[in-house]
């Protein structure tokens, strides 16, 4: 019973870490891209769409983290 609760707790921590660390990584990646996108858009509004697209590319890593979190939460 206690072991079961401990395992569930550890799984929840693992899922949290998967999403959290992926989020931090994506944030670090996006900071540079976002700054460049804002700079380019400030000069020429035509870069707005492209800027948004490039800025969200590192977000994919968060989706991987989210998938891992779901697997941990529902597959075990």
């Amino acid at each position, binding site marked *: 019973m206690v072991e079961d609760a401990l395992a569930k707790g550890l799984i929840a921590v693992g899922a949290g870490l998967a999403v959290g660390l992926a989020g931090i990584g994506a944030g670090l990646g996006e*900071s*540079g*891209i*976002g*700054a*460049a*996108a*804002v*700079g*380019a858009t*400030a*000069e*020429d509004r035509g*870069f707005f769409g492209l800027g948004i697209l490039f800025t969200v590319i590192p977000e994919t890593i968060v989706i991987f983290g989210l998938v891992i979190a779901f697997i941990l939460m529902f597959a075990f």
Partner: protein
Amino acid sequence: MIYRGNRAAWAYIVARTKVMKSRLLKAEDFRKLLNMDFDEIIRYVGETEYKREVDEMGYKYTGPRLLDYALFANLARTYRKLIEVSFGASKFLIAKYLEKWDVWNLINILRGKMAGVQPEIIEDTLVPAGEKDFEFYKTLIVRDVEEVVKAFEGTPYYEALSKIGSEDMSKIEDELYKIYYRELLKLSPSDFAMKLFLDFIRMEVDIRNIKTILRLKADDATAEEIMNCIIPGGYELTEDEARKLAAMPLDELVKALEGYWFWKDIEIEGKEVARVEIEFDKIWISTIAKRASNYPLSILPVLQYVVLKKVEVDNLRILGWGKWYGLPNEEIERQMVIL
């Protein structure tokens, strides 16, 4: 302590200057402009980034003066914008580099005052892109030369300025630029961004010095006269190296230049010095471009834009004056720095 900045800060200003750089006139635009007459050039320039300044100056001036003052006004606005939109380390370094225009403005004011030029005309030749703003220069223009010199008391430039009257103005100008570079090179290479900046400055000093050596050699100047005009602190062309080169006859000097970063098989024989200088400018620009692409998140792409903007303005001025005096297209093209 200088704010070190971070990658995001560099990414912002570099992306912004890259977009600004994309709006500079291309080689094919200059070729198109070469086939136009003067009025068509003014119209063409008035439809580009220079529109605001051409409109502003249009009611005061005509002919090549209109082009000149509009281009300078645009240069000042562009450089000021760079300082305004940057922050942290990039702002500090851009502002430091653009202090060169303080020297330019000071020289313009002094020369204008000595030649008795009207204050309004001196005002329009200024490029207030450095540390001092336009208001400061406006207060200087109405004063006499002694008071202008006094306004710089306490600055590093005062020492050179106090020699006005007792020494030739061209020597004082050389001295002012030497002080500008000396002050820049006093910055310590505390981090990589600063090291790249200082290397850039040293390379610029090299280019200025080699041009000076060749120009003075062509005028049969003595080694001592040449050394008086040399700016210390070069990248490869140190003061000792410059002294050695200054003492050589021209043919030996050309051979000795092989191996320096700024020497790429330039044909000197039978060429005017001005044309050789253009070759050095082209090498300088391509070297900056290479270094800026090697270090994309640094001050180099911004400085590359600063240099290219000045080259564009110079090219347009050459084009304007050349067309105004009816020079043949080939001759105008030879004087321009087109890559």
